[in-house]
């Protein structure tokens, strides 16, 4: 069946220990080509810029990332047209992003952060400012990266899950239908 809505990754706070392996894996796979990241720490010459955010709260911790909304407020808010929907996912074009912060304010999950933009192992500067160029950093479900979302693959506690919402919904439907067999004589 044609996939009509976007997938997303969700964290499980009952399993997450807050080790941030997901953040590091995310940064690594997204910067292998553009910033020549290798397999050791010594190859990292740029700031660590994850696309999901380990979040601590009163009861525990879990990573928070983009839900790839179907009426995405960030996409609708972006005046520059730097956010678009590609193959059902909401994707930021870091080159086009001018750091206006509108998407950050529009997102109800806090799934976007403005982080320094680096290319070829160096921060990208600006003409009339000492501050580096930034970009809206958010989950792109590891678009174009072999093996799917790195956070899911790397988590040592399987606390992250790639959700295919429609397929899961259909499975849940079947369980619900079977439950109706048990409750049919409710009167």
């Amino acid at each position, binding site marked *: 069946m044609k996939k009509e809505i976007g997938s997303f990754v969700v964290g499980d706070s009952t399993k997450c220990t807050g080790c941030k392996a997901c953040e590091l894996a995310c940064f690594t796979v997204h910067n292998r080509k553009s910033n020549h990241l290798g397999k050791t720490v010594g190859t990292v010459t740029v700031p660590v810029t994850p696309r999901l955010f380990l979040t601590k709260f009163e009861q525990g911790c879990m990573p928070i990332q983009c839900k790839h*909304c179907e*009426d995405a407020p960030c996409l609708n808010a972006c005046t520059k047209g730097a956010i678009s929907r590609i193959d059902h996912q909401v994707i930021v074009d870091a080159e086009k992003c001018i750091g206006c912060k509108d998407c950050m304010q529009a997102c109800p999950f806090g799934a976007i952060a403005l982080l320094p933009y680096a290319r070829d192992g160096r921060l990208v500067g600006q003409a009339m400012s000492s501050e580096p160029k930034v970009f809206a950093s958010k989950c792109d479900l590891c678009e174009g990266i072999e093996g799917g979302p790195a956070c899911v693959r790397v988590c040592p506690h399987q606390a992250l899950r790639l959700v295919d919402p429609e397929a899961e919904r259909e499975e849940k439907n079947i*369980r*619900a239908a079977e439950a*109706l067999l048990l409750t*049919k004589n*409710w009167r």
Partner: protein
Amino acid sequence: MNYFVKGNPDLCIGCRTCMIGCVVAHEGKHIFEVDPDSYSFNPKLHMVKTANLSVPVQCKHCENPACMAVCPVGAISQKDHCIVIDTEKCMGCKSCMDACPFGAINMTVQTGKFQADGTEKKVANKCDLCYGFSGGPACVRVCPTEALTLVTEDELGDAMERKRAEAARNAYLETHPQE
């Protein structure tokens, strides 16, 4: 207590009239006269067919709805015995879809509404018990085998009381076998 519509797999023949009735009730009768591609066919209940059964599955209008709890924009609320989605507020984040254990929520295209980049707007879609329409849930009315029932607080309460009385009677008979 919230009301809900319940399907009986013994009576359901899987004809999907409930799904059509649902769309007609929410979209209007004009859907029979227009190009099928000009509106989105979005039933708010889902026909499940397996080797053992056929029955529609729809929202249970839970008393502590997980969908309502996870919605980040407060688009899901309780109104007059049912849980309803405000499609104007919904931004299609799918959190409710993930939270619902019955798979009662899906994402549907909002005909004629687009996002900033021109792609179709999709929002959460689920049974609203035909909220605001007269005559009650359309699926219940159109089902040819009467496989769907609207369960109200009174009905469920009465059934529970009947069952308790029956259990008490049986227990009494056990201790007073002579009667």
